[in-house]
Protein backbone atom coordinates (compact mmCIF):
# COMPACT_ATOMS: atom_id res chain seq x y z
CA UNK A 1 0.00 0.00 0.00
CA UNK A 2 1.00 3.60 -0.46
CA UNK A 3 2.95 5.11 2.38
CA UNK A 4 2.05 8.69 3.13
CA UNK A 5 4.69 10.81 1.48
CA UNK A 6 5.89 7.88 -0.66
CA UNK A 7 7.53 9.07 -3.85
CA UNK A 8 5.33 9.17 -6.93
CA UNK A 9 6.56 6.46 -9.30
CA UNK A 10 8.43 7.62 -12.37
CA UNK A 11 6.69 6.47 -15.54
CA UNK A 12 9.22 8.00 -17.93
CA UNK A 13 10.97 5.67 -20.32
CA UNK A 14 13.70 6.11 -22.93
CA UNK A 15 13.01 4.32 -26.19
CA UNK A 16 16.21 4.02 -28.22
CA UNK A 17 17.27 7.46 -27.06
CA UNK A 18 13.83 9.02 -27.31
CA UNK A 19 12.65 10.14 -23.90
CA UNK A 20 8.94 9.59 -23.33
CA UNK A 21 6.96 10.93 -20.41
CA UNK A 22 5.26 7.56 -19.94
CA UNK A 23 5.30 4.30 -21.89
CA UNK A 24 1.87 4.51 -23.57
CA UNK A 25 1.71 5.30 -27.29
CA UNK A 26 -1.27 4.84 -29.58
CA UNK A 27 -1.34 2.02 -32.08
CA UNK A 28 -1.52 3.36 -35.63
CA UNK A 29 -5.02 3.74 -37.03
CA UNK A 30 -6.84 3.67 -33.71
CA UNK A 31 -6.55 7.30 -32.67
CA UNK A 32 -6.55 10.49 -34.75
CA UNK A 33 -5.33 13.62 -32.99
CA UNK A 34 -6.89 15.96 -35.55
CA UNK A 35 -10.30 14.32 -35.52
CA UNK A 36 -10.27 14.18 -31.74
CA UNK A 37 -9.46 17.88 -31.54
CA UNK A 38 -12.12 18.69 -34.11
CA UNK A 39 -14.80 16.81 -32.24
CA UNK A 40 -13.98 17.18 -28.59
CA UNK A 41 -11.98 20.41 -28.71
CA UNK A 42 -8.22 20.96 -28.32
CA UNK A 43 -8.68 20.86 -24.56
CA UNK A 44 -9.53 17.15 -24.87
CA UNK A 45 -5.89 16.65 -25.85
CA UNK A 46 -4.40 18.71 -23.06
CA UNK A 47 -2.50 17.00 -21.65
CA UNK A 48 -1.97 14.79 -24.68
CA UNK A 49 -3.09 11.27 -23.75
CA UNK A 50 -0.16 9.45 -25.41
CA UNK A 51 3.58 9.97 -24.92
CA UNK A 52 4.16 9.77 -28.68
CA UNK A 53 1.71 9.99 -31.54
CA UNK A 54 1.58 7.45 -34.36
CA UNK A 55 -0.74 8.66 -37.14
CA UNK A 56 -2.58 6.30 -39.45
CA UNK A 57 -0.46 4.42 -41.99
CA UNK A 58 0.49 6.43 -45.07
CA UNK A 59 1.34 4.85 -48.41
CA UNK A 60 2.96 6.27 -51.53
CA UNK A 61 -0.24 6.34 -53.55
CA UNK A 62 -3.71 7.09 -52.30
CA UNK A 63 -5.52 3.92 -51.21
CA UNK A 64 -9.29 3.55 -51.21
CA UNK A 65 -9.13 0.66 -48.80
CA UNK A 66 -11.20 -2.49 -48.66
CA UNK A 67 -14.92 -2.80 -49.41
CA UNK A 68 -17.19 -2.66 -46.36
CA UNK A 69 -18.06 -4.08 -43.96
CA UNK A 70 -14.65 -3.41 -42.52
CA UNK A 71 -14.97 -4.32 -38.90
CA UNK A 72 -17.02 -5.98 -36.24
CA UNK A 73 -16.75 -6.97 -32.63
CA UNK A 74 -15.59 -10.45 -31.65
CA UNK A 75 -15.29 -12.25 -28.32
CA UNK A 76 -12.93 -10.09 -26.24
CA UNK A 77 -11.87 -8.11 -29.24
CA UNK A 78 -12.59 -6.96 -32.74
CA UNK A 79 -11.64 -7.75 -36.30
CA UNK A 80 -10.87 -5.19 -38.97
CA UNK A 81 -9.95 -5.09 -42.63
CA UNK A 82 -9.77 -1.38 -43.40
CA UNK A 83 -7.02 -1.92 -45.95
CA UNK A 84 -4.91 1.14 -45.17
CA UNK A 85 -7.29 3.71 -46.65
CA UNK A 86 -5.31 6.94 -46.84
CA UNK A 87 -4.84 9.91 -49.17
CA UNK A 88 -1.25 9.07 -50.17
CA UNK A 89 2.01 10.72 -49.14
CA UNK A 90 1.60 14.03 -50.97
CA UNK A 91 -1.72 14.89 -49.32
CA UNK A 92 -0.35 13.56 -46.04
CA UNK A 93 2.64 15.89 -46.22
CA UNK A 94 0.44 18.85 -47.14
CA UNK A 95 -1.58 18.20 -43.99
CA UNK A 96 1.45 17.54 -41.77
CA UNK A 97 1.61 21.14 -40.45
CA UNK A 98 -1.87 20.59 -38.99
CA UNK A 99 -0.17 18.27 -36.52
CA UNK A 100 2.09 21.04 -35.25
CA UNK A 101 -0.15 21.35 -32.18
CA UNK A 102 0.74 17.81 -31.09
CA UNK A 103 3.03 18.31 -28.08
CA UNK A 104 4.66 14.87 -28.21
CA UNK A 105 7.01 13.20 -30.71
CA UNK A 106 5.30 12.02 -33.90
CA UNK A 107 6.22 8.67 -35.42
CA UNK A 108 5.23 8.46 -39.09
CA UNK A 109 3.79 5.03 -39.82
CA UNK A 110 4.54 3.88 -43.37
CA UNK A 111 2.93 1.09 -45.36
CA UNK A 112 3.48 -0.11 -48.87
CA UNK A 113 2.84 -2.66 -51.55
CA UNK A 114 6.49 -2.91 -52.61
CA UNK A 115 9.69 -2.27 -50.63
CA UNK A 116 10.44 0.67 -52.94
CA UNK A 117 7.17 2.33 -51.92
CA UNK A 118 8.19 2.46 -48.26
CA UNK A 119 11.54 3.98 -49.16
CA UNK A 120 10.02 6.60 -51.43
CA UNK A 121 7.57 7.65 -48.73
CA UNK A 122 10.35 7.87 -46.18
CA UNK A 123 12.51 9.86 -48.60
CA UNK A 124 9.71 12.35 -49.25
CA UNK A 125 9.06 12.87 -45.54
CA UNK A 126 12.76 13.46 -44.96
CA UNK A 127 12.85 15.86 -47.89
CA UNK A 128 9.89 17.84 -46.57
CA UNK A 129 11.36 18.00 -43.08
CA UNK A 130 14.77 19.01 -44.42
CA UNK A 131 13.11 21.87 -46.27
CA UNK A 132 12.38 23.12 -42.76
CA UNK A 133 8.68 23.54 -43.33
CA UNK A 134 7.51 26.00 -40.73
CA UNK A 135 5.03 24.66 -38.25
CA UNK A 136 5.96 21.04 -38.74
CA UNK A 137 5.31 18.67 -35.88
CA UNK A 138 8.29 17.07 -34.15
CA UNK A 139 8.71 13.99 -36.35
CA UNK A 140 10.96 11.83 -34.23
CA UNK A 141 11.01 8.83 -36.51
CA UNK A 142 9.21 6.17 -38.45
CA UNK A 143 7.33 2.99 -37.88
CA UNK A 144 7.50 0.69 -40.89
CA UNK A 145 4.27 -1.27 -41.08
CA UNK A 146 5.58 -4.42 -42.74
CA UNK A 147 2.77 -6.39 -41.20
CA UNK A 148 -0.69 -5.26 -42.21
CA UNK A 149 -2.70 -8.43 -42.85
CA UNK A 150 -5.27 -6.64 -45.00
CA UNK A 151 -3.41 -5.41 -48.04
CA UNK A 152 -3.04 -8.56 -50.07
CA UNK A 153 0.53 -9.31 -51.07
CA UNK A 154 1.77 -6.09 -49.54
CA UNK A 155 3.48 -5.39 -46.27
CA UNK A 156 2.68 -8.74 -44.81
CA UNK A 157 4.89 -10.46 -47.39
CA UNK A 158 7.86 -8.29 -46.37
CA UNK A 159 7.24 -8.82 -42.69
CA UNK A 160 6.93 -12.58 -42.96
CA UNK A 161 10.34 -13.04 -44.56
CA UNK A 162 13.51 -12.26 -42.59
CA UNK A 163 15.47 -11.62 -45.80
CA UNK A 164 12.95 -9.09 -47.14
CA UNK A 165 12.65 -7.44 -43.74
CA UNK A 166 16.40 -7.11 -43.51
CA UNK A 167 16.73 -5.56 -46.99
CA UNK A 168 13.94 -3.05 -46.43
CA UNK A 169 15.17 -2.08 -42.97
CA UNK A 170 18.73 -1.60 -44.17
CA UNK A 171 17.61 0.56 -47.08
CA UNK A 172 15.38 2.65 -44.81
CA UNK A 173 18.23 2.97 -42.31
CA UNK A 174 20.38 4.51 -45.01
CA UNK A 175 17.75 7.20 -45.64
CA UNK A 176 17.25 8.56 -42.14
CA UNK A 177 18.98 9.33 -38.89
CA UNK A 178 15.67 9.48 -37.11
CA UNK A 179 14.25 6.69 -34.99
CA UNK A 180 13.48 3.67 -37.15
CA UNK A 181 10.92 1.24 -35.81
CA UNK A 182 9.78 -1.90 -37.60
CA UNK A 183 6.29 -3.17 -36.76
CA UNK A 184 6.17 -6.93 -36.93
CA UNK A 185 3.40 -9.36 -37.64
CA UNK A 186 2.39 -12.22 -35.38
CA UNK A 187 1.43 -14.21 -38.48
CA UNK A 188 4.75 -16.03 -38.71
CA UNK A 189 6.17 -19.27 -37.40
CA UNK A 190 9.32 -17.69 -35.97
CA UNK A 191 8.93 -14.08 -34.92
CA UNK A 192 12.47 -13.99 -33.50
CA UNK A 193 13.97 -14.59 -36.93
CA UNK A 194 12.14 -11.60 -38.44
CA UNK A 195 12.86 -9.46 -35.38
CA UNK A 196 16.55 -10.32 -35.54
CA UNK A 197 16.67 -9.47 -39.24
CA UNK A 198 15.18 -6.03 -38.58
CA UNK A 199 17.41 -5.34 -35.59
CA UNK A 200 20.60 -6.40 -37.33
CA UNK A 201 19.71 -4.27 -40.35
CA UNK A 202 19.61 -1.18 -38.18
CA UNK A 203 16.12 -0.88 -36.70
CA UNK A 204 16.26 1.15 -33.48
CA UNK A 205 13.20 -0.55 -32.03
CA UNK A 206 10.59 -3.17 -32.84
CA UNK A 207 6.81 -2.95 -32.50
CA UNK A 208 5.18 -6.24 -31.57
CA UNK A 209 2.54 -7.16 -32.65
CA UNK A 210 0.23 -6.14 -35.46
CA UNK A 211 -3.16 -7.85 -35.71
CA UNK A 212 -3.63 -11.60 -35.98
CA UNK A 213 -5.05 -12.76 -39.29
CA UNK A 214 -8.52 -14.06 -38.65
CA UNK A 215 -11.94 -14.81 -40.09
CA UNK A 216 -15.48 -14.01 -38.96
CA UNK A 217 -18.60 -15.38 -40.61
CA UNK A 218 -21.97 -13.78 -41.04
CA UNK A 219 -24.02 -16.01 -38.74
CA UNK A 220 -27.01 -15.99 -41.07
CA UNK A 221 -25.35 -16.64 -44.41
CA UNK A 222 -22.35 -18.55 -43.05
CA UNK A 223 -20.12 -16.68 -45.47
CA UNK A 224 -17.21 -14.33 -44.61
CA UNK A 225 -18.59 -11.19 -42.94
CA UNK A 226 -15.89 -8.70 -43.92
CA UNK A 227 -15.68 -7.23 -47.39
CA UNK A 228 -12.04 -8.35 -47.50
CA UNK A 229 -13.15 -11.78 -46.20
CA UNK A 230 -10.22 -12.10 -43.75
CA UNK A 231 -9.18 -9.40 -41.33
CA UNK A 232 -6.93 -8.67 -38.39
CA UNK A 233 -7.94 -9.64 -34.87
CA UNK A 234 -7.10 -7.23 -32.05
CA UNK A 235 -8.16 -6.52 -28.50
CA UNK A 236 -7.75 -8.52 -25.29
CA UNK A 237 -8.28 -11.77 -27.23
CA UNK A 238 -4.75 -11.50 -28.66
CA UNK A 239 -2.93 -10.27 -25.56
CA UNK A 240 -1.50 -13.66 -24.61
CA UNK A 241 -0.22 -14.14 -28.17
CA UNK A 242 1.38 -10.70 -28.15
CA UNK A 243 2.91 -11.23 -24.71
CA UNK A 244 4.45 -14.51 -25.81
CA UNK A 245 6.01 -12.88 -28.86
CA UNK A 246 7.39 -9.89 -26.93
CA UNK A 247 8.76 -12.33 -24.36
CA UNK A 248 10.43 -14.47 -27.05
CA UNK A 249 11.99 -11.51 -28.85
CA UNK A 250 13.11 -9.79 -25.65
CA UNK A 251 14.66 -13.03 -24.53
CA UNK A 252 16.66 -13.33 -27.72
CA UNK A 253 17.58 -9.75 -28.67
CA UNK A 254 18.60 -6.48 -27.05
CA UNK A 255 16.48 -4.29 -29.37
CA UNK A 256 13.98 -2.08 -27.53
CA UNK A 257 10.39 -3.24 -27.97
CA UNK A 258 7.08 -1.40 -28.17
CA UNK A 259 4.63 -4.03 -26.97
CA UNK A 260 1.06 -4.02 -28.23
CA UNK A 261 -1.87 -6.35 -28.53
CA UNK A 262 -4.96 -6.13 -26.38
CA UNK A 263 -3.71 -3.67 -23.77
CA UNK A 264 -6.79 -2.49 -21.93
CA UNK A 265 -5.66 -1.64 -18.40
CA UNK A 266 -2.62 -0.60 -16.38
CA UNK A 267 -1.72 -4.13 -15.38
CA UNK A 268 -1.60 -5.14 -19.05
CA UNK A 269 1.11 -2.50 -19.54
CA UNK A 270 3.04 -3.86 -16.60
CA UNK A 271 2.84 -7.37 -18.05
CA UNK A 272 4.27 -6.25 -21.38
CA UNK A 273 7.07 -4.44 -19.55
CA UNK A 274 7.73 -7.54 -17.47
CA UNK A 275 8.07 -9.44 -20.76
CA UNK A 276 10.74 -6.97 -21.83
CA UNK A 277 8.88 -4.14 -23.56
CA UNK A 278 10.26 -0.63 -23.13
CA UNK A 279 7.06 1.08 -24.25
CA UNK A 280 3.59 -0.07 -25.26
CA UNK A 281 0.83 0.96 -27.63
CA UNK A 282 -2.91 1.01 -27.00
CA UNK A 283 -5.09 0.12 -29.97
CA UNK A 284 -8.53 -1.43 -29.77
CA UNK A 285 -9.04 -0.04 -26.25
CA UNK A 286 -9.23 3.43 -27.79
CA UNK A 287 -12.55 2.31 -29.26
CA UNK A 288 -14.01 1.62 -25.83
CA UNK A 289 -13.90 5.32 -25.04
CA UNK A 290 -11.80 8.46 -25.39
CA UNK A 291 -10.66 8.22 -21.78
CA UNK A 292 -8.95 4.82 -22.27
CA UNK A 293 -5.31 5.99 -22.54
CA UNK A 294 -5.50 8.33 -19.53
CA UNK A 295 -7.20 5.65 -17.49
CA UNK A 296 -4.54 3.11 -18.48
CA UNK A 297 -1.70 5.47 -17.51
CA UNK A 298 -3.38 6.23 -14.18
CA UNK A 299 -3.88 2.52 -13.52
CA UNK A 300 -0.24 1.85 -14.38
CA UNK A 301 0.87 4.45 -11.86
CA UNK A 302 -1.40 2.88 -9.26
CA UNK A 303 0.04 -0.57 -10.05
CA UNK A 304 3.55 0.70 -9.37
CA UNK A 305 2.48 2.43 -6.18
CA UNK A 306 0.62 -0.66 -5.02
CA UNK A 307 3.66 -2.85 -5.64
CA UNK A 308 6.07 -0.36 -4.12
CA UNK A 309 8.01 -0.01 -7.37
CA UNK A 310 9.85 3.26 -8.08
CA UNK A 311 9.75 2.96 -11.88
CA UNK A 312 9.21 0.60 -14.79
CA UNK A 313 12.86 -0.43 -14.92
CA UNK A 314 12.24 -2.26 -11.65
CA UNK A 315 9.96 -4.69 -13.38
CA UNK A 316 11.28 -4.72 -16.95
CA UNK A 317 12.18 -8.20 -18.09
CA UNK A 318 11.06 -9.85 -14.88
CA UNK A 319 9.19 -12.50 -16.88
CA UNK A 320 12.30 -13.43 -18.84
CA UNK A 321 13.06 -16.47 -16.72
Amino acid at each position, binding site marked *: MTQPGAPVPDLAVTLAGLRLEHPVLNAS*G*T*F*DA*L*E*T*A*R*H*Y*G*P*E*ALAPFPFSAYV*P*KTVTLERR*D*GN*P*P*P*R*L*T*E*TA*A*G*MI*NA*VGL*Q*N*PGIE*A*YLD*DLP*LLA*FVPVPVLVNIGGRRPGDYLEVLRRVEERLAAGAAGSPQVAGYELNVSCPNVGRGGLAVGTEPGETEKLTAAARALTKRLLIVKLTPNVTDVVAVARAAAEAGADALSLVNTVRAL*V*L*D*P*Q*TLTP*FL*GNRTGGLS*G*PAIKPVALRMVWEVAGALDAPIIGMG*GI*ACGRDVLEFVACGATAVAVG*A*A*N*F*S*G*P*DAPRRIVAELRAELVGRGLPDLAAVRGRALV
Partner: protein
Amino acid sequence: MNSTAPPPAEQTCATATSGHYRVIERRSFGPYALLTLLAPDIAALAAPGQFVMVALPGTQFRLRRPLSLHSVGGERVRLLVEPRGEGTRELVELGVADTLAVAGPLGHGFPLERVRAALLVAGGIGVAPFQFVADVLRARGVPVTATFGFRDEGQARLAGAFEIDHLWVATDDGSVGRHGTAVELAREVGAGPQASVLACGPAPLLDAVRTWASTAGLSGYASLEAHMACGSGACHGCVVPTREGYLRVCVDGPVFALDLLGSGASTDASAPGAGLAPDGAKPQAAQ
Protein backbone atom coordinates in the same frame (compact mmCIF):
# COMPACT_ATOMS: atom_id res chain seq x y z
CA MET B 1 -6.59 13.78 -42.68
CA ASN B 2 -9.81 14.61 -44.37
CA SER B 3 -9.76 18.29 -45.15
CA THR B 4 -13.48 18.99 -44.92
CA ALA B 5 -13.31 20.19 -41.31
CA PRO B 6 -11.32 23.15 -40.09
CA PRO B 7 -8.04 22.44 -38.31
CA PRO B 8 -8.16 22.62 -34.54
CA ALA B 9 -6.54 26.02 -34.45
CA GLU B 10 -9.46 27.55 -36.33
CA GLN B 11 -12.05 25.89 -34.17
CA THR B 12 -12.98 27.71 -31.04
CA CYS B 13 -15.24 25.18 -29.39
CA ALA B 14 -15.92 21.49 -29.31
CA THR B 15 -18.79 20.01 -31.29
CA ALA B 16 -19.05 17.00 -29.01
CA THR B 17 -18.38 15.98 -25.46
CA SER B 18 -18.02 12.77 -23.53
CA GLY B 19 -19.03 11.86 -20.04
CA HIS B 20 -21.23 9.77 -17.80
CA TYR B 21 -24.95 10.46 -17.89
CA ARG B 22 -27.83 9.22 -15.79
CA VAL B 23 -30.91 7.48 -17.13
CA ILE B 24 -33.80 9.49 -15.70
CA GLU B 25 -36.66 7.82 -17.51
CA ARG B 26 -37.22 4.55 -19.32
CA ARG B 27 -40.25 3.63 -21.39
CA SER B 28 -40.92 0.30 -23.07
CA PHE B 29 -42.47 -0.21 -26.46
CA GLY B 30 -42.71 -3.95 -26.76
CA PRO B 31 -39.09 -5.17 -26.72
CA TYR B 32 -37.78 -1.67 -27.49
CA ALA B 33 -36.71 0.89 -24.89
CA LEU B 34 -36.77 4.66 -24.99
CA LEU B 35 -34.09 5.87 -22.59
CA THR B 36 -34.02 9.48 -21.42
CA LEU B 37 -30.61 10.70 -20.27
CA LEU B 38 -29.90 13.87 -18.36
CA ALA B 39 -27.13 15.18 -20.60
CA PRO B 40 -27.23 18.98 -20.80
CA ASP B 41 -23.96 19.39 -22.68
CA ILE B 42 -24.89 16.86 -25.36
CA ALA B 43 -28.40 18.33 -25.63
CA ALA B 44 -26.97 21.81 -26.12
CA LEU B 45 -24.82 20.72 -29.06
CA ALA B 46 -27.15 18.25 -30.76
CA ALA B 47 -28.77 18.52 -34.18
CA PRO B 48 -31.36 16.20 -35.73
CA GLY B 49 -29.83 13.13 -37.36
CA GLN B 50 -26.71 13.12 -35.21
CA PHE B 51 -25.72 10.14 -33.10
CA VAL B 52 -23.87 9.29 -29.92
CA MET B 53 -21.41 6.52 -29.08
CA VAL B 54 -22.61 4.61 -26.05
CA ALA B 55 -20.29 2.44 -23.96
CA LEU B 56 -21.82 -0.79 -22.75
CA PRO B 57 -21.92 -1.38 -19.01
CA GLY B 58 -19.26 -3.62 -17.47
CA THR B 59 -15.50 -3.81 -17.71
CA GLN B 60 -14.93 -6.32 -20.50
CA PHE B 61 -13.77 -5.08 -23.89
CA ARG B 62 -16.62 -4.10 -26.16
CA LEU B 63 -16.98 -1.61 -28.93
CA ARG B 64 -19.25 1.29 -28.17
CA ARG B 65 -22.62 1.30 -29.93
CA PRO B 66 -23.63 4.18 -32.19
CA LEU B 67 -27.21 5.28 -31.44
CA SER B 68 -29.26 7.99 -33.11
CA LEU B 69 -30.62 10.81 -31.03
CA HIS B 70 -34.36 10.10 -30.98
CA SER B 71 -35.14 13.51 -29.54
CA VAL B 72 -33.74 16.31 -27.45
CA GLY B 73 -35.61 18.48 -24.98
CA GLY B 74 -34.05 20.96 -22.59
CA GLU B 75 -31.25 19.13 -20.84
CA ARG B 76 -32.43 15.70 -21.89
CA VAL B 77 -31.61 13.43 -24.78
CA ARG B 78 -33.55 10.33 -25.72
CA LEU B 79 -32.25 7.15 -27.30
CA LEU B 80 -34.50 4.51 -28.86
CA VAL B 81 -32.85 1.11 -28.50
CA GLU B 82 -33.56 -2.14 -30.28
CA PRO B 83 -32.36 -5.31 -28.51
CA ARG B 84 -30.54 -6.63 -31.54
CA GLY B 85 -27.68 -8.55 -29.94
CA GLU B 86 -26.10 -9.08 -26.55
CA GLY B 87 -24.81 -5.55 -26.20
CA THR B 88 -27.96 -3.68 -27.16
CA ARG B 89 -29.97 -6.09 -24.98
CA GLU B 90 -27.95 -4.83 -22.00
CA LEU B 91 -28.79 -1.26 -22.95
CA VAL B 92 -32.48 -2.07 -23.23
CA GLU B 93 -32.39 -3.54 -19.73
CA LEU B 94 -30.97 -0.38 -18.15
CA GLY B 95 -33.16 1.24 -15.57
CA VAL B 96 -33.70 4.66 -14.07
CA ALA B 97 -30.62 5.90 -12.15
CA ASP B 98 -28.22 3.73 -14.13
CA THR B 99 -25.46 5.72 -15.77
CA LEU B 100 -24.00 5.40 -19.23
CA ALA B 101 -20.72 6.60 -20.73
CA VAL B 102 -21.70 8.52 -23.82
CA ALA B 103 -19.78 10.58 -26.37
CA GLY B 104 -21.49 12.93 -28.77
CA PRO B 105 -23.24 14.38 -30.57
CA LEU B 106 -21.36 13.08 -33.58
CA GLY B 107 -21.70 13.18 -37.35
CA HIS B 108 -23.57 15.40 -39.75
CA GLY B 109 -27.32 15.43 -39.25
CA PHE B 110 -30.13 16.24 -41.69
CA PRO B 111 -29.69 19.67 -43.30
CA LEU B 112 -33.11 21.11 -42.56
CA GLU B 113 -32.56 24.84 -43.19
CA ARG B 114 -34.05 24.83 -46.66
CA VAL B 115 -36.72 22.18 -46.12
CA ARG B 116 -40.18 23.62 -46.96
CA ALA B 117 -42.07 20.38 -46.45
CA ALA B 118 -40.77 17.04 -45.27
CA LEU B 119 -41.66 13.46 -45.99
CA LEU B 120 -39.99 11.18 -43.46
CA VAL B 121 -39.65 7.61 -44.72
CA ALA B 122 -38.30 5.03 -42.32
CA GLY B 123 -38.29 1.33 -41.64
CA GLY B 124 -37.69 -0.71 -38.50
CA ILE B 125 -35.39 0.88 -35.95
CA GLY B 126 -34.52 3.38 -38.71
CA VAL B 127 -37.38 5.46 -37.35
CA ALA B 128 -35.14 6.39 -34.39
CA PRO B 129 -33.88 9.86 -35.43
CA PHE B 130 -37.19 11.22 -36.69
CA GLN B 131 -38.81 12.59 -33.55
CA PHE B 132 -35.95 15.09 -33.29
CA VAL B 133 -36.31 15.93 -36.99
CA ALA B 134 -40.08 16.38 -36.67
CA ASP B 135 -39.73 18.51 -33.53
CA VAL B 136 -37.31 20.91 -35.16
CA LEU B 137 -39.38 21.21 -38.33
CA ARG B 138 -42.64 21.66 -36.42
CA ALA B 139 -41.09 24.47 -34.39
CA ARG B 140 -40.35 26.20 -37.67
CA GLY B 141 -43.86 25.65 -38.99
CA VAL B 142 -42.72 23.22 -41.68
CA PRO B 143 -45.34 20.58 -42.55
CA VAL B 144 -44.15 17.06 -41.75
CA THR B 145 -45.57 13.78 -42.99
CA ALA B 146 -44.08 10.48 -41.84
CA THR B 147 -44.48 6.99 -43.26
CA PHE B 148 -43.00 4.25 -41.08
CA GLY B 149 -42.75 0.64 -42.18
CA PHE B 150 -42.41 -2.33 -39.85
CA ARG B 151 -42.04 -6.08 -40.18
CA ASP B 152 -45.00 -6.97 -38.03
CA GLU B 153 -47.12 -5.97 -35.07
CA GLY B 154 -44.28 -6.48 -32.62
CA GLN B 155 -41.94 -4.15 -34.45
CA ALA B 156 -44.74 -1.66 -35.05
CA ARG B 157 -44.72 -1.00 -31.29
CA LEU B 158 -41.86 1.39 -32.15
CA ALA B 159 -44.44 3.82 -33.56
CA GLY B 160 -45.62 4.40 -29.98
CA ALA B 161 -42.38 6.27 -29.28
CA PHE B 162 -43.35 9.06 -31.68
CA GLU B 163 -45.54 12.11 -31.59
CA ILE B 164 -45.75 13.28 -35.16
CA ASP B 165 -48.97 14.87 -36.46
CA HIS B 166 -49.17 13.06 -39.76
CA LEU B 167 -47.72 9.64 -39.04
CA TRP B 168 -48.69 6.72 -41.24
CA VAL B 169 -47.76 3.13 -40.52
CA ALA B 170 -47.42 0.08 -42.76
CA THR B 171 -46.45 -3.48 -41.95
CA ASP B 172 -45.09 -6.20 -44.18
CA ASP B 173 -47.75 -8.61 -42.94
CA GLY B 174 -50.58 -6.12 -42.76
CA SER B 175 -51.11 -6.70 -39.04
CA VAL B 176 -50.93 -2.98 -38.26
CA GLY B 177 -51.75 -0.09 -40.56
CA ARG B 178 -51.37 -0.44 -44.26
CA HIS B 179 -50.22 -3.74 -45.79
CA GLY B 180 -46.95 -2.89 -47.54
CA THR B 181 -43.78 -0.91 -47.15
CA ALA B 182 -42.94 2.59 -45.96
CA VAL B 183 -41.98 3.57 -49.49
CA GLU B 184 -45.26 2.35 -51.00
CA LEU B 185 -47.04 4.32 -48.33
CA ALA B 186 -44.93 7.41 -49.02
CA ARG B 187 -45.73 7.14 -52.71
CA GLU B 188 -49.45 7.12 -51.94
CA VAL B 189 -49.51 9.75 -49.23
CA GLY B 190 -47.01 12.13 -50.82
CA ALA B 191 -46.17 15.56 -49.48
CA GLY B 192 -46.22 17.71 -52.59
CA PRO B 193 -43.55 18.53 -55.17
CA GLN B 194 -41.71 20.80 -52.73
CA ALA B 195 -41.17 18.04 -50.20
CA SER B 196 -37.75 16.87 -49.14
CA VAL B 197 -37.53 13.14 -48.58
CA LEU B 198 -35.66 12.23 -45.40
CA ALA B 199 -35.06 8.51 -45.07
CA CYS B 200 -33.58 6.03 -42.66
CA GLY B 201 -33.84 2.28 -42.68
CA PRO B 202 -32.45 -0.97 -44.04
CA ALA B 203 -30.71 -1.14 -47.41
CA PRO B 204 -33.72 -2.30 -49.47
CA LEU B 205 -35.76 0.60 -48.11
CA LEU B 206 -33.07 3.13 -48.91
CA ASP B 207 -32.66 1.71 -52.41
CA ALA B 208 -36.43 1.96 -52.95
CA VAL B 209 -36.50 5.51 -51.59
CA ARG B 210 -33.67 6.56 -53.86
CA THR B 211 -35.31 5.07 -56.94
CA TRP B 212 -38.70 6.56 -56.14
CA ALA B 213 -37.35 10.01 -55.23
CA SER B 214 -35.32 10.22 -58.40
CA THR B 215 -38.31 9.15 -60.54
CA ALA B 216 -40.60 11.59 -58.75
CA GLY B 217 -38.03 14.40 -59.03
CA LEU B 218 -37.74 14.76 -55.28
CA SER B 219 -34.48 15.48 -53.51
CA GLY B 220 -33.59 14.27 -50.10
CA TYR B 221 -31.26 12.67 -47.63
CA ALA B 222 -30.72 9.27 -46.08
CA SER B 223 -29.17 8.37 -42.76
CA LEU B 224 -26.97 5.28 -42.92
CA GLU B 225 -25.69 2.83 -40.42
CA ALA B 226 -22.43 0.92 -40.30
CA HIS B 227 -20.41 -1.09 -37.87
CA MET B 228 -18.29 1.52 -36.07
CA ALA B 229 -15.26 1.52 -33.82
CA CYS B 230 -14.08 5.06 -33.11
CA GLY B 231 -17.15 7.08 -34.11
CA SER B 232 -15.03 10.11 -34.87
CA GLY B 233 -13.15 9.59 -38.10
CA ALA B 234 -9.98 7.86 -36.94
CA CYS B 235 -10.32 4.25 -37.94
CA HIS B 236 -12.05 4.33 -41.34
CA GLY B 237 -13.94 1.22 -40.31
CA CYS B 238 -17.45 2.44 -41.10
CA VAL B 239 -17.21 3.53 -44.73
CA VAL B 240 -19.95 3.20 -47.32
CA PRO B 241 -19.47 3.32 -51.08
CA THR B 242 -20.74 6.58 -52.59
CA ARG B 243 -20.32 8.43 -55.86
CA GLU B 244 -17.34 10.14 -54.19
CA GLY B 245 -15.74 6.86 -53.15
CA TYR B 246 -15.74 5.32 -49.70
CA LEU B 247 -16.99 7.87 -47.17
CA ARG B 248 -17.04 7.46 -43.41
CA VAL B 249 -20.52 7.14 -41.97
CA CYS B 250 -19.34 8.60 -38.66
CA VAL B 251 -17.93 11.94 -39.84
CA ASP B 252 -18.94 12.33 -43.49
CA GLY B 253 -22.44 11.09 -42.55
CA PRO B 254 -24.43 9.46 -41.12
CA VAL B 255 -26.70 11.59 -43.32
CA PHE B 256 -25.89 11.66 -47.03
CA ALA B 257 -27.69 13.27 -49.98
CA LEU B 258 -29.72 10.57 -51.76
CA ASP B 259 -28.04 11.31 -55.07
CA LEU B 260 -24.60 10.75 -53.53
CA LEU B 261 -25.54 7.16 -52.83
CA GLY B 262 -25.06 5.23 -56.03
CA SER B 263 -26.76 1.98 -56.81
CA GLY B 264 -25.77 -0.48 -54.14
CA ALA B 265 -24.24 2.31 -52.10
CA SER B 266 -26.37 1.38 -49.15
CA THR B 267 -26.07 -2.39 -49.41
CA ASP B 268 -23.73 -2.56 -46.48
CA ALA B 269 -25.65 -0.15 -44.37
CA SER B 270 -28.74 -1.38 -42.69
CA ALA B 271 -31.37 -0.08 -40.34
CA PRO B 272 -29.78 3.00 -38.85
CA GLY B 273 -30.33 4.19 -35.36
CA ALA B 274 -29.85 1.05 -33.37
CA GLY B 275 -26.14 0.78 -33.79
CA LEU B 276 -24.04 -2.04 -35.03
CA ALA B 277 -24.94 -5.63 -34.45
CA PRO B 278 -22.79 -6.49 -31.45
CA ASP B 279 -22.47 -10.18 -32.14
CA GLY B 280 -21.63 -9.88 -35.79
CA ALA B 281 -25.18 -10.47 -36.93
CA LYS B 282 -26.27 -8.39 -39.84
CA PRO B 283 -29.28 -6.33 -38.91
CA GLN B 284 -32.47 -7.83 -40.21
CA ALA B 285 -34.19 -6.10 -43.03
CA ALA B 286 -37.58 -4.84 -42.05
CA GLN B 287 -38.84 -4.51 -45.58
